[in-house]
C-alpha cells in the first residue's frame, strides 16, 4: 500500500503536520501526469489539455462525493487549508459585523480574523464552550450582526472534535465554515447531512495527498468574493472576473500534478478507508495518564476524541521531551504551540511553551500505541 521504509513509518507521529507515507498510488498518479499527460487545464482542446481537464474534473467529482456535496463545480482547488480558509473568511467578512469562532482555533483562522478586526472593524466572538474547548451548542444565542461562523472541526492541539451538525443547526442562516485541517480523511464528513456551508481542507494531512493541495467547497449559496482575480480560461474577452464556480475562486493554472495525486489519495480512502486513529488515541491517553508526571491535553469525553492529542511531562520543557524522544527512539513528534496560541491559552499551556503532540496515521497499527507509551514513560522516568 506504500513504498516507504517501515521503520520511518512506525516512528512518525507528526501526522497533524503532514501525513507520511502516502499511498503508493499517489506518487504513481503524479508521475503519470508529469510523464503521460502534462497538458494544461482547459484553455485548449488538444489531447493533452483534454486529458488534464478530465483529470481535474474527476478529482472534483471524487472530492465532492467524498464530502457529501452534490455539485462538483463547487469544489475550488487551493494551495492548502490556510489558502482555502482565507478565501472564505476574507470573502465573506462584512464591515463591522461579527464573526463567531471557537477557543481552539489555529492561526490559519485567527490571523485572518485579527487582520479583519484592524482593517474593517470586524468583531470576533467566541462560541460558548467547555474546559476542553468543545462548543456547547445549546448555549449559542442568535446574533443578527453575525456574518460568519468558523470552527476548527478537530483541534490540532487536544484533538477534540466539535459537534458540527449541532452547531450548524443553531447558526442556521449565517454562513457556516468548517476548518477540516485535522479531520478531513479521518472523521466522516457529509456537508449536506451536517449542515456545512463551506468546508476548507488540506490535501496533504489525513487525505494522504501531496503538499501544495487543498480545497474550499462552497456548498451553500453564500457569495464569496475572490481574493485573487485572474485568468480562468472562461469569458476571456472580458476583464471582469467570472462569478460562476469554480472559476470565480480559482484563478491561474492549478497544481495539476498535485491534484492528480490528491485524486488518487481520495480514491485510496474511498476504497480502503481510514484507520481507527481515534481509538488508538483514546487508549494512549488513558495509559499516559497513569504515568507519574505526565499530563495530557485531550477531549473531556473520549467519544469526541480524534486521532491526536498533546501531553507534557512535569519538570521538562516540551522541546526537551521532543528532543529526547527523537534522540532516544527516533520518534517524530511536534513540540511547541502548534501555530495555535489561542488553543494553548484556552488549555492553559501557553505560558509553559505549549506541549508535545502525538498524531496517529493511516499506516500505523495498534502497536503504535505501545511505542508511544513506552517512549514517553522512559523519558518521564528521567525527569528531575
Amino acid at each position: 500500500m506504500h513504498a516507504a521504509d517501515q521503520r520511518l513509518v512506525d516512528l512518525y507521529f507528526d501526522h497533524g503536520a503532514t501525513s507520511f507515507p502516502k499511498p503508493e498510488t499517489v506518487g504513481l498518479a503524479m508521475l503519470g501526469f508529469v510523464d503521460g499527460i502534462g497538458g494544461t487545464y482547459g484553455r485548449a482542446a488538444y489531447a493533452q489539455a483534454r486529458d488534464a481537464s478530465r483529470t481535474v474534473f474527476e478529482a472534483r467529482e471524487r472530492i465532492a462525493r467524498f464530502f457529501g456535496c452534490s455539485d462538483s463545480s463547487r469544489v475550488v482547488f487551493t494551495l492548502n487549508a490556510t489558502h482555502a480558509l482565507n478565501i472564505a473568511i476574507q470573502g465573506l467578512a462584512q464591515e463591522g459585523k461579527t464573526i463567531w469562532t471557537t477557543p481552539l482555533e489555529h492561526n490559519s483562522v485567527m490571523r485572518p480574523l485579527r487582520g479583519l478586526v484592524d482593517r474593517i472593524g470586524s468583531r470576533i466572538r467566541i462560541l460558548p464552550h467547555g474546559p476542553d474547548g468543545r462548543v456547547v451548542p445549546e448555549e449559542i444565542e442568535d446574533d443578527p450582526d453575525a456574518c460568519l461562523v468558523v470552527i476548527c472541526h478537530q483541534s490540532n492541539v487536544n484533538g477534540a472534535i466539535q459537534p458540527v451538525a449541532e452547531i450548524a443547526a443553531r447558526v442556521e442562516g449565517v454562513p457556516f465554515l468548517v476548518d477540516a485541517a485535522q479531520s478531513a480523511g479521518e472523521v466522516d464528513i457529509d456537508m449536506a447531512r451536517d449542515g456545512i456551508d463551506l468546508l476548507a481542507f488540506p490535501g496533504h494531512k489525513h487525505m494522504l495527498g501531496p503538499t501544495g493541495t487543498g480545497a474550499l467547497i462552497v456548498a451553500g449559496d453564500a457569495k464569496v468574493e475572490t481574493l485573487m482575480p485572474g485568468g480562468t480560461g472562461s469569458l476571456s474577452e472580458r476583464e471582469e472576473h467570472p462569478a460562476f464556480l469554480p472559476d470565480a475562486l480559482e484563478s491561474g493554472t492549478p497544481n495539476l500534478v498535485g491534484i492528480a495525486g490528491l485524486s488518487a489519495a481520495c480514491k485510496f480512502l474511498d476504497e480502503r478507508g481510514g484507520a481507527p486513529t481515534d481509538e488508538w488515541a483514546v487508549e494512549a491517553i488513558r495509559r499516559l495518564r497513569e504515568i507519574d508526571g505526565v499530563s495530557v491535553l485531550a477531549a473531556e469525553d473520549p467519544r469526541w476524541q480524534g486521532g491526536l492529542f498533546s501531553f507534557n511531562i512535569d519538570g521538562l520543557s516540551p522541546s526537551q521531551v521532543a528532543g529526547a524522544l527523537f534522540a532516544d527512539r527516533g520518534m517524530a513528534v511536534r513540540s511547541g504551540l502548534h501555530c495555535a496560541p489561542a488553543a494553548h491559552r484556552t488549555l492553559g499551556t501557553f505560558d509553559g511553551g505549549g506541549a508535545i503532540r502525538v498524531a496517529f496515521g493511516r499506516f500505523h497499527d495498534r502497536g503504535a500505541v505501545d511505542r508511544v507509551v513506552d517512549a514517553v514513560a522512559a523519558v518521564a522516568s528521567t525527569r528531575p
Partner: protein
Amino acid sequence: MKILLFENVHRVMQAERALLSAGVRCEMLPTPKEHSRECGMCIGVDAADLEEAGAVLGDLVRGIVDAEAGRP
C-alpha cells in the same frame, strides 16, 4: 456538425461525461473564434444527434452554433 458552447471547462467535462454515458457521440474541440467569449473548449456533435444531445444536457448548454466553415 453542431458546436455546443458551455460556461466553463468544468461544464464541458460534465457534458462530455453525460453524452458518453448516454451513448451520444461527441468530440471536444477548440471553441470557434467568433464564440471565444465562452470557454476555450466546446463539444461538437453530429447534426443528427443534436436533439438527443440537447435532451441529455438540458440547461448545461449555453449556445449552439454551426461548425466553422471548411471544417469537416
